[in-house]
């Protein structure tokens, strides 16, 4: 314990003190245990649903040569090792199992055959819960992603209860996600552990990760790990892409929908030799068809074209792993009135148009030094450089932005004494250079942030896990920032786990990029003051239980999270003529409660039912010198999600059906005669609740998949998504008040072709 205390590179500010005290208590407790000299036990396998002893399995301490074999009754006895506390049981044809050995002297292994694992992977449920992680984490697998055949990251959460998609505006086609009652900007979104959708990229970033590239998505709720930085406030999402050494040598997907959107994806993975592999992910999609189903004279969906690709190389050696690659993206969007053409812009023609041209280049590398004899040890370096260039206009108003980012993260992980005590520590550096120009205002900002972090993990036989981390970042503009975070997981019994988390988040906002949808209006943008960084504390608790009723298996989850803001960017759209930005004066918080049941009544049939309640408020009124706590606009209090899926063996046929009910929400006052003079007792408008129905059928052939599906099958549309659509250059024009789908029913079909090695 002393070692850790001395090595800790820094100590937290006042609020962290109890954490260190807690540490101390644990060390004292664990240190005082009396430990037997030998560990003995039995190795079993499962045969016909029963535990039977397995003869001849090998047992050894991880990273040592100290080992014994189990006898004919599966029993063994092995002397303790000072070098390792991870006892591994292995046997040909079975999967290795490792137990962290603490004070106990009797243990039990149950080995599974490799084949049974394959089954778990292939037939596993679509959304799985990471049972081991102390942070409540849902894993969305390729199988769940296939339920929403279209199109990119923003649609990948369709069957997930924790993340929902919100509609930003009626013109640009950008989509935002929401978690724990707060916008996607408060979630740290990483692609393979590199912070990716941030800064100016938040506007359309979710559209830049095609669905077919995604291997899996981890959704972590609440405060995240300190290893990836200080920006996660309500959670973190990590997206893993298809790997260069994947067994899918070739994957081709094509998609078309009734609005005329067409999409092509081609993924290639090539094993160059034993150690090197190369992977290519590509995407091209376009919409050339002018759709105006609600007859308001505006395109319901912008015309667009996107080209997107990643090329990367991977080296996997015994003591070293390396990956490097390049990502490029080009996107061109045109929206606005149906008769608008970009060529005639600036001709003085009174036709409202929206355009955005985005170019992005990114290079990245990841290297890791491995220690084959000490599997708990590792040294990794992540480097990333990106350039984001966006040129857009709303009517006659131009908005251009450029962001250059450099990111480096060096991580070292090892153990203290034995594997009950593990830690990760490292150094990071972030350089962000922003150059934005909106109308005649120029916003320049250069952030240079060196930082260091330390995260300690205490694991007592997976029964109790504690992760305590802190980081210190030296921000060139906003001073030294401490980011303490704490996670705990307690296994109440075999099937029930309780998780607790708390942590601080810090981020510098980019008001124009984050409220891009509100710029499609005649509102005047006013920065009431210098915007300070946002600071929040998030606290959460969750209870997960797995259960069986006869042959039925299932899980239920209850969770509650609260985010308290010390400072928040207030984007005030209460006055129809203005979009005010100012700092939080008093209170802002978001409470989120969620209850979820997953049920597998018979093999290959799954049901999910979830209810979620938000209570999100913020203090507004600064423009009139008032201070009024108001429910946050556009956030619906209630949401219900139901999902049913059924598959035949080998997924020959797959059926999937999702229905969501989105409750009422507060929206700006839309009365044309409304005169906004005060925030007290002001009249509020409420948008109605609505249903959203999606369904999909997939037929699998040995090499082909064919799918047919529909979104928004109930054909629900917001009746007048654009206010003042007939006078887009008038005082009342606003396309940013969108709370429901703008387009109606969407039917799509597509096919996938794959060659598996």
């Amino acid at each position, binding site marked *: 314990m002393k070692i850790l205390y001395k090595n800790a590179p820094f100590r937290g500010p006042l609020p962290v003190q109890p954490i260190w005290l807690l540490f101390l208590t644990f060390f004292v407790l664990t240190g005082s245990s009396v430990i037997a000299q030998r560990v003995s036990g039995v190795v079993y396998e499962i045969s016909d649903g029963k535990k039977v002893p397995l003869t001849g399995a090998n047992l050894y301490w991880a990273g040592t040569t100290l080992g014994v074999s189990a006898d004919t009754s599966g029993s063994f006895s092995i002397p303790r090792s000072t070098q390792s506390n991870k006892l591994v049981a292995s046997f040909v044809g079975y999967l290795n199992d490792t137990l962290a050995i603490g004070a106990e002297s009797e243990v039990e292994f149950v080995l599974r055959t490799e*084949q049974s694992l394959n089954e778990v992977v292939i037939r596993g449920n679509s959304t799985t819960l990471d049972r081991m992680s102390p942070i409540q984490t849902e894993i969305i697998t390729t199988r769940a992603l296939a339920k929403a055949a279209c199109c990119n990251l923003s649609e990948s959460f369709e069957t997930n209860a924790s993340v929902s998609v919100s509609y930003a505006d009626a013109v640009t086609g950008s989509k935002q996600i929401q978690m724990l009652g707060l916008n996607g900007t408060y979630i740290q979104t990483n692609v393979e552990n590199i912070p990716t959708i941030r800064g100016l990229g938040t506007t359309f970033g979710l559209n830049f990760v095609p669905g077919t590239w995604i291997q899996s998505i981890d959704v972590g709720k609440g405060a995240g790990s300190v290893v990836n930085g200080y920006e996660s406030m309500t959670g973190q999402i990590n997206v893993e892409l298809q790997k260069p050494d994947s067994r899918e040598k070739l994957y081709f997907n094509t998609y078309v929908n009734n609005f005329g959107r067409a999409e092509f994806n081609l993924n290639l993975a090539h094993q160059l030799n034993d150690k090197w592999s190369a992977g290519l992910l590509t995407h091209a999609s376009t919409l050339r068809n002018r759709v105006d189903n609600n007859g308001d004279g505006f395109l319901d969906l912008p015309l667009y074209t996107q080209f997107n690709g990643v090329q990367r190389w991977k080296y996997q050696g015994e003591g070293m792993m390396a990956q490097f690659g390049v990502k490029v993206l080009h996107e061109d969007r045109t929206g606005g009135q149906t008769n608008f053409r970009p060529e005639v812009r600036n001709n003085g023609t009174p036709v409202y148009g929206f355009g955005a041209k985005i170019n992005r280049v990114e290079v990245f590398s990841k290297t890791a030094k491995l220690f084959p004899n000490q599997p708990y040890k590792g040294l990794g370096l992540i480097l990333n450089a990106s350039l984001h260039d966006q040129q857009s206009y709303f009517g006659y108003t131009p908005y251009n932005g450029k962001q250059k980012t450099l990111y480096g993260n060096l991580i070292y992980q090892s153990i203290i004494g034995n594997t009950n005590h593990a830690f990760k520590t490292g150094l990071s550096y972030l350089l962000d250079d922003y150059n934005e120009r909106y109308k005649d205002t120029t916003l320049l900002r250069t952030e240079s942030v060196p930082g260091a972090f330390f995260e300690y993990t205490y694991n007592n036989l997976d029964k109790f896990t504690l992760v305590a981390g802190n980081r210190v970042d030296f921000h060139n503009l906003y001073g030294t920032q401490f980011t303490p975070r704490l996670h705990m997981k307690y296994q109440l019994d075999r099937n029930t786990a309780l998780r607790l988390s708390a942590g601080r988040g810090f981020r510098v906002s980019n008001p124009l990029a984050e409220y891009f949808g509100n710029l499609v209006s005649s509102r005047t943008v006013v920065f009431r003051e210098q915007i300070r960084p946002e600071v929040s504390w998030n606290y959460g608790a969750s209870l997960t239980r797995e259960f069986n009723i006869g042959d039925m298996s299932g899980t239920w989850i209850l969770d509650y999270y609260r985010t308290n803001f010390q400072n928040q960017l207030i984007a005030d759209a209460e006055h129809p003529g203005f979009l005010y930005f100012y700092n939080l004066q008093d209170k802002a918080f978001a409470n989120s409660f969620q209850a979820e049941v997953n049920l597998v009544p018979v093999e290959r*049939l799954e049901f999910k039912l979830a209810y979620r309640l938000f209570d999100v408020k913020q203090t507004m009124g600064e423009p009139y010198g008032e201070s009024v706590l108001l429910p946050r606009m556009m956030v619906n209090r209630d949401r219900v999600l139901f999902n*049913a899926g*059924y598959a035949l063996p080998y997924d*020959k046929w797959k059926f999937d059906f999702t229905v969501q009910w989105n409750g009422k929400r507060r929206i700006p006052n839309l009365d044309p005669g409304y005169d906004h003079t005060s925030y007290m007792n002001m009249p509020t408008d409420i948008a109605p609740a609505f249903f959203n*129905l999606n*369904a999909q059928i997939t037929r699998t052939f*040995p090499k082909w998949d064919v799918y047919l599906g529909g979104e928004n*099958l109930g054909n629900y549309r917001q009746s007048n998504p654009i206010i003042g659509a007939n006078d887009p250059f008038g005082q009342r024009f606003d396309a940013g008040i969108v709370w429901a789908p703008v387009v109606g029913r969407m039917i799509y079909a597509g096919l996938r072709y794959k060659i598996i090695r």
Partner: protein
Amino acid sequence: MKATIFSILFAFALTMGAAQAQDKEVKIKTSAICEMCKERLERNLGLSKGVKEAELNLDNKVMTVKYNPKKTDVASIKEMIVKTGYDADGVVADQKAHDKLPKCCQKSAKPHSDMKH
């Protein structure tokens, strides 16, 4: 809306009921070698017409296939195995398909570690 939910649930119930028809079973000896072979064969057979279930036992390399005799027969099942690149009872593997298999799955491969003892 309600009607849609019910009809979809009904469709589920129908498909599940239909699986209970009169099935036949056949055992075929193959030249499979490892877990990868097993996965490949089971998937290809499982997805082919009329096949309900396909399971390969790697100890004796015998493939047990449950099928609907109205939709397929033993000869077609064997042909599927042969086209995947493996021997099926007396029928020798399609040479082209066999040569396309990864090295570890070809007949010349020595028995290897991911195989059950």
